């Protein structure tokens, strides 16, 4: 399902000829304000796979500012779903709502519901700590703790109360192998994680996230601070992870979304605009707004 750059880019010249004949001018981003009555386009294919996450009428407010407007989307199990959109469109906010990391920010209020495996996660009485153990997260900037590589990987297990050395060591190796980092660090597990390169640190963070065997792996622009080679390695890794995990990845980079994801959601100004299989979204978007964004006309 995944595409590489070459299948997306050649379409651009054709589109440039088509667009000027349209009624609405598209040359400037600020003219593309989503109207209140705009309908979200969700392609049928999205709902053909059983969802692991169901987001229902989800709204989020930072104080009085409404950051997410009634988002509805199903995230299919065992697939990579990318969220794209210009800065400030709410894609990271939505991602951080899935593991309730927004709870840490003062003044955040939500309505609507998100279900993980059919369980509502915003229902009263939900154990947020237990919830977060089922949702691994990888951040924009790699953030290994200032401890050894080993201590970083087994952190989540230790927090969960695991003390048996053999279990921890086994999990450490399995997670590092899963993150394609084992061969590079197996001889220096006791060294500080801060001595690793940026790309290695990010893969370490992925290893740390998968060590607790989460249901879903949330990635918030995981390669935006990496050079192209390290980015390539992390993307390969994401591609491999799909067999075992559901991945939700927020990215600024549309080629990346095209390369690694099975489904793509385009968000704009706190709304889900269009959501469908990555191939269709990039090549046959149903909405003009999506088309303008994926062809690089705005954003």
């Amino acid at each position, binding site marked *: 399902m995944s595409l590489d750059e070459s299948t997306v880019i050649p379409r651009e010249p054709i589109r440039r000829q088509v667009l000027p004949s349209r009624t609405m001018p598209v040359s400037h981003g600020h003219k593309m304000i989503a109207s209140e009555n705009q309908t979200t386009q969700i392609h049928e294919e999205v709902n053909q796979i059983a969802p692991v996450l169901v987001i229902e009428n989800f709204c989020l407010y930072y104080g009085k500012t409404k950051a997410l407007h009634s988002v509805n989307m199903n995230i299919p199990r065992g697939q990579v779903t990318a969220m794209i959109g210009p800065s400030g469109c709410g894609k990271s906010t939505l991602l951080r709502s899935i*593991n309730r990391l927004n709870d840490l920010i003062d003044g955040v209020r939500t309505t609507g519901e998100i279900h993980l495996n059919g369980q509502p996660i915003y229902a009263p009485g939900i154990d947020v700590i237990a919830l977060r153990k089922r949702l*691994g997260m990888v*951040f924009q900037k790699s953030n290994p*703790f200032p401890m050894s590589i080993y201590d970083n990987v087994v952190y989540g297990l230790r*927090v*969960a109360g695991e003390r048996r050395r053999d279990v921890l060591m086994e999990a450490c190796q399995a997670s590092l192998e899963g993150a394609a980092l084992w061969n590079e660090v197996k001889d220096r597990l006791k060294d500080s994680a*801060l001595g690793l390169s940026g790309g290695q640190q990010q893969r370490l963070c992925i290893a*740390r996230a998968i060590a607790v065997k989460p249901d879903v792996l949330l990635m918030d622009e995981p390669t935006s601070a990496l050079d192209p080679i390290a980015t390539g390695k992390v993307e390969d890794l994401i591609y491999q992870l799909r067999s075992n995990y559901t991945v939700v990845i927020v990215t600024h980079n549309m080629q990346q979304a095209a390369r690694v994801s099975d489904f793509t959601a385009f968000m704009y100004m706190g709304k889900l605009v269009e959501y469908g299989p990555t191939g269709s979204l990039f090549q046959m978007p149903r909405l003009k707004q999506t088309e303008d964004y994926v062809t690089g006309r705005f954003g």
Partner: protein
Amino acid sequence: MISIASNYYARLAKAHSFTMQIVCTAFAMIILVLLALVTAFLLYHGFTSINLAFFTQTPSGDIQNPGGMLHGLMGTAILITIASTVGIPLGMLTGVYLSEYASNSVLAGPTRFVADVLAGVPSIVVGILGYELLVVPLGDYNGWAGAIALAFIMVPIVARTTEEMLRLVPKSYREASVALGATKAGTILRVVIPSATGSLVTGIMLAIARVAGETAPLIFTALGSRFLPVIREPSPYFHPTDLQHPFPSLTKQIFDYATGPYPEQKRLAWAGILVLISLIFVLNLSIRYFATRTRRTAT
């Protein structure tokens, strides 16, 4: 015209810059010379007065041969130990509260303000407070009052440095820990405090160095004594009841000898000052060691 004008201003600027450099260097030199004088004076008087008896004997009562300051060294060590046992945990917990729990609480501002004011209160005021609260009710000057007065000076210093150091720990560490299923307390104990250990130790040592040289708060509380702080009854070793009496300290003994009329006692005071300054110097060196070590691990 333009070239002449700019030339003139360039020369003026150069002269200004040169004068500034000369003035700053000159003042730095003055300070350095003064410091060197004080140090030389101190070393001269200190080293000519110090001997083995200083470390092994207590005041003899003989004006010509006044003995040593073993009682003061032991007294100061005991006072600082007790003050640290009380003051450091209280200060650190307050710092953790300010940095981790109170960021938006109504209590945060007042607590921080009170800590700042307390850190600036002249230490003699703390001594008078100790006199009113711990000496008058107990009926006699005593070691407890001295130790608590010193602890009272330590708390705001430790609290504020702890807060500042914990604030420097990147938010991303806290997010990563919480996303892995750690509780807030678990995150603070496992990630936040360990990654700030070096700078926390620096803050603690600064507080110890500060109270090690305090005399004023001890005048009204521990009073001072010419006998060993460890009384043979009820135990030949240190016993808490030893603190129920007027309690010796190095600084108070130096104060008494230095303001007294006898030359031999004045010499002993010089030796005491040398020992005290050396102790604080060693503490400062270890502070530097810890501080640089932290910086190295943080990069």
